């Protein structure tokens, strides 16, 4: 469908006004909101995510694309309905204690919402207690943790230890990511999954909730 690839390519350029207008007309053409999301917004975001990973574009392009994605998503949300929003479960995300970087985490949040998850974003500098309490209170099935500093990465281990301590480690699974985080580190601290970038983190969450 022509309009969906237009949405994707406008999103790739970060043209949020164009994305909003095209999303609106796609809805008026009675395309399904879920289809517009998957094949328009998320398809474009996937391209930007890949380009960022390959260093073909930089953070400004990703931030602009994310803004365009949100512009479209706002229009789609009333149409996506609770059925889609709740079908995949709740994910609690945040940047670990001491870490003020939240760019990667925000991207993961946007893409998780786009993929139909209920996302509770605790922001940055989140304590292990807040991660675990929030997951417990909201019945979340996954905690996603991000770190951009080698000095704050050990905070991830504390969250996992706290889940074990409270006997929640089988009901709440964990996925970790961020520039200095490696698969080896994730395994070593006992995380259930490791997302090497935002798009992959969403795949990990999907697998974890199976």
């Amino acid at each position, binding site marked *: 469908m022509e309009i969906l690839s237009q949405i994707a390519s406008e999103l790739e350029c970060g043209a949020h006004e164009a994305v909003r207008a095209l999303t609106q007309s796609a809805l008026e053409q009675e395309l399904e909101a879920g289809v517009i999301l998957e094949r328009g917004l998320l398809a474009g975001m996937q391209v930007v995510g890949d380009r960022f990973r*390959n*260093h*073909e*574009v*930089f*953070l*400004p*392009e990703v*931030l*602009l694309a994310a803004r365009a994605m949100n512009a479209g998503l706002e229009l789609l949300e009333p149409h996506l309905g609770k059925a889609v929003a709740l079908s995949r479960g709740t994910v609690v995300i945040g940047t*670990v*204690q*001491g870490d*003020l*970087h939240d*760019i990667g985490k925000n991207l993961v949040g946007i893409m998780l919402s786009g993929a139909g998850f209920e996302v509770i974003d605790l922001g940055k*500098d989140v304590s292990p207690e807040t991660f675990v309490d929030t997951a417990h209170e909201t019945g979340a099935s996954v905690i996603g943790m991000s770190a951009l500093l*080698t*000095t*704050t*990465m*050990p*905070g991830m*281990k504390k969250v996992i230890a706290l889940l074990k301590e409270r006997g929640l480690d089988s009901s709440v699974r964990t996925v970790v990511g961020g520039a*200095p985080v*490696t698969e*080896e*580190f994730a395994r*070593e*601290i006992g995380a259930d999954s490791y997302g090497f970038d935002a798009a992959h983190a969403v795949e990990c969450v999907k697998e974890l909730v199976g």
Partner: protein
Amino acid sequence: MTMRPFLERVRNGPVVIADGATGSFLMARGLRSGDSPESLNLTRPDLLREVAQGYLDAGAELVQTNTFGGSPMRLATYGLDGQTEEINRIAVEAVREAVAGRAYVSGSCGPSGHILEPLGDAVPDEVRAGFRRQMEALVAAGVDLLTIETMMDVGEARLAIEAARSVSAGIPVMATMTFDATPRGFHTIMGNDVPSTAAGLVEAGADVVGSNCGNGSETMVEIAREFRACTDAPLLIQPNAGLPQIVDGHAIYDETPEFMAERAKELLELGVQVIGGCCGTTPDHIRALREVLLT
């Protein structure tokens, strides 16, 4: 002993050996991961003197203050922005006491931690004013120069340089940014390349420009070569001791002092005027640099 004016020394040589990492040193002495390193200025100024002394003994002639996250924007995360002046003043006093005129005292200023409008929500005038507040405290406490470092957005670096210039027209200002190697050459995460960075920093009023952090010494030689090709401004280069490997949840840097010192010879040949270390470097690295570069 009194030091020659910093910029005169930079212009006429010999190369200035700067210090190495502070954060890892403080963590080894009890700074907890997740705490503000600058909070130690209020509670353990003795540690600041100890770090400075370690680098002085190793032969560093330029010592940075423990104020990398000392802007009110960063301190606000820990609820410490109300103590911006005190935190910066104590850091300078501690280093000055240890140095006692034997080295240049440099006020370290790191990024605000925010992304500027329109991509992010930080208002440029407010960011500039925040840097100014930190720098006023550093200059009032007697730093010999200011070092704006680990910047990733040349726009933010320029705001910091403008702030420095508004505090003092004459104080030497060094400004360095952190680059990633990409298929299209070195770029910051915000997409600034070396030529536009060098031009932007110099135009905003920096006296010395260059790169710190993000790369080991081999890659830093390549970055220095790019800087040298596009600017006549004096250069400052501070490599990490390699890239961090995570072992048992801790960051381990694997470049030995000898390895780094060999690469530093190449920096010297390129005409880099100030050479030091960033993450993972220790007084041993600085001692090795000094032996290789100044003997």
